[in-house]
């Protein structure tokens, strides 16, 4: 079943076209990956899906509903969350408070389901449990990344957008993060991943798209794209 569908999306900054007519869809229960160079439009695509950027033309459907002009919080309510680029944890809040922020729109704060979700996040990121009372701003980059992902999961989303989760992390941590991405999928949450770390990302993607200057230039199953010589040459060069 198609969970997210992008049709003919165009996004402009002033007169500059950042996204030029891209279309793709994300099937429920899969990992879909967008790869591409700096400035290709990956982050813009995610911000548009989350409602942080206005669409110039085209439309976005989530779960069969047109959400092109929906507010970010309306999308969160429908089950679409994002772990943004650069983590963007609330530095002045504790880990617990950050997680609670993730569950902002949930009304079942006292329910078993909520506690279950919290346990699930702590299961994925045991480090977070150790530091529930620590201010997020004082944690390391890797820990903040975990927090950002955990926070996005706390809304019990159907689709989670992960923007560059491996950015700026040590190789060992990167592997850990990616195995958690697998875990998230295994637990039944659909993932839309944006990565520069193409090798790791493609390996586990059901579908992947390559973006170049705002357009999708190549699509296919992750493994297949990873084997594509052109993709290899362009994106898999010095990868970990």
């Amino acid at each position: 079943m198609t969970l997210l569908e992008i049709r003919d999306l165009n996004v402009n900054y002033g007169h500059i076209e950042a996204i030029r007519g891209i279309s793709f869809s994300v099937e429920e229960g899969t990992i879909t990956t967008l790869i591409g160079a700096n400035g290709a439009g990956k982050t813009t695509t995610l911000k548009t899906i989350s409602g942080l950027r206005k669409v110039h033309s085209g439309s976005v459907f989530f779960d069969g509903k047109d959400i092109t002009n929906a507010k970010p919080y309306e999308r969160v309510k429908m089950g679409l969350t994002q772990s943004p680029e650069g983590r963007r944890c609330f530095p002045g809040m504790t880990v617990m408070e950050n997680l609670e922020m993730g569950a902002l729109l949930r009304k079942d704060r006292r329910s078993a389901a909520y506690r279950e979700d919290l346990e699930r996040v702590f299961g994925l990121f045991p480090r977070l449990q150790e530091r529930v009372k620590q201010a997020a701003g004082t944690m390391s980059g890797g820990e903040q990344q975990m927090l950002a992902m955990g926070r996005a999961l706390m809304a019990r989303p159907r689709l989670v957008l992960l923007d560059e989760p491996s950015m700026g992390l040590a190789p060992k941590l990167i592997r850990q993060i990616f195995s958690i991405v697998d875990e998230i999928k295994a637990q039944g949450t659909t993932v839309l991943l944006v990565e520069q770390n193409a090798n790791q990302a493609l390996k586990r993607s059901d579908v992947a798209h390559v973006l170049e200057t705002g357009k999708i230039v190549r699509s296919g199953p992750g493994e297949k794209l990873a084997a594509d010589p052109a993709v290899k040459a362009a994106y898999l060069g010095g990868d970990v």
Partner: protein
Amino acid sequence: MNNIISGLRARLAPVADRVGTALEPVGRVLGMKSVKYPLRTVGVLLIYALPILHLPLINTENSDFSGVLFTVGTYVLVALGLNIVIGYAGLLDLGYVGFYAVGAYTVGVVTSEHGQWPFFLALPLALVVTMASGVLLGAPTLRVRGDYLAIVTMGFGEIIRIVARNTDWLGGAGGINSIPSPPDIGPEEGLFQIPHLSWQYGYPTIDDRVTKVLHFGVLDATPYFWMILTTIILVICADMLIKNSRVGRAWEATREDEDVAELMGVPTFKFKLLAFAMGACIGGLAGAMYATRVGFINPPSFPLMLSLLFVAAVVIGGAGNRWGAILGAVIVAYLPERFREFADWRLLVFGIALIVIVSFRTQGLFPGRQKKRVAQAEKEVQKLEEGAEIV
């Protein structure tokens, strides 16, 4: 110096060209190839002639028009000075009235309270004293950034007023009176006399009022207006030179990003202090002229509210653009006098006007040219942001 002039020329040339092109048809009608200089001269002459022409519609009822023009002139001068501080250097000063007061008090002290200096000798002293006070107040306060500066400067504005009030040497609460007018230049009857127009019957006739040129009496504000208008023109020229010099660029860099400016070798503190001192100096100049025109100053003449009006003038005109600042000053000072019939409603209408103006022109009426550039650049930056990912 050459640098400055060629820079100035380069900066002005396109503007002049644009004006020239726009006015070309006028030139054709008048049979001239280029009309920009004659036209500009006529424009300036027209402004000089305003107080004697008493043009209908812009003339003020119930309030002497040349007196109003003088008040507008002081606001314009103040706005030019404050524009350097807010518009060029990006320092929000909510206590600018303090410098206005220092200028006025300097003149008051040396010409009336503790001396009989002639005005034209007191004026340079007022400039020096206000500049010094700008440095004195700026040195400690400019180290605080952003909004803190706003409140600290506001505090200093108040401190100056209260100190004046509590200090007997400065006339205390009673203020300083009998501040003399500037000395006349030429004979008692003025160099020559210019009659005023009257529009009483719908068409211009010659009134029996005359203005004595360069005779600074208490009855006629016109010579004072000419004095302040001349000062304004000089200040505008100086402003153009500075804005386009190395100093102007340093201010711009400091305003846009202080840290980057520092990294590029701009001693930002020094330049901020310079902006503060220059702004103070021009504010003091306006205060000095106010003092000699009104002849009486007291602490309540320099309330905090005046600072807010000054800032409003600069900002609604468009901080960073001297013409915008001038227009803002004219709006703030002239409109309330022109629409005196609204009497009690003036401040209310003014408040509404402020909200309306800024909500439709979010950069002020005339944003500075670099402001427009920045706005344009910001859009592009947003795109570049995309590419600025750290890998």
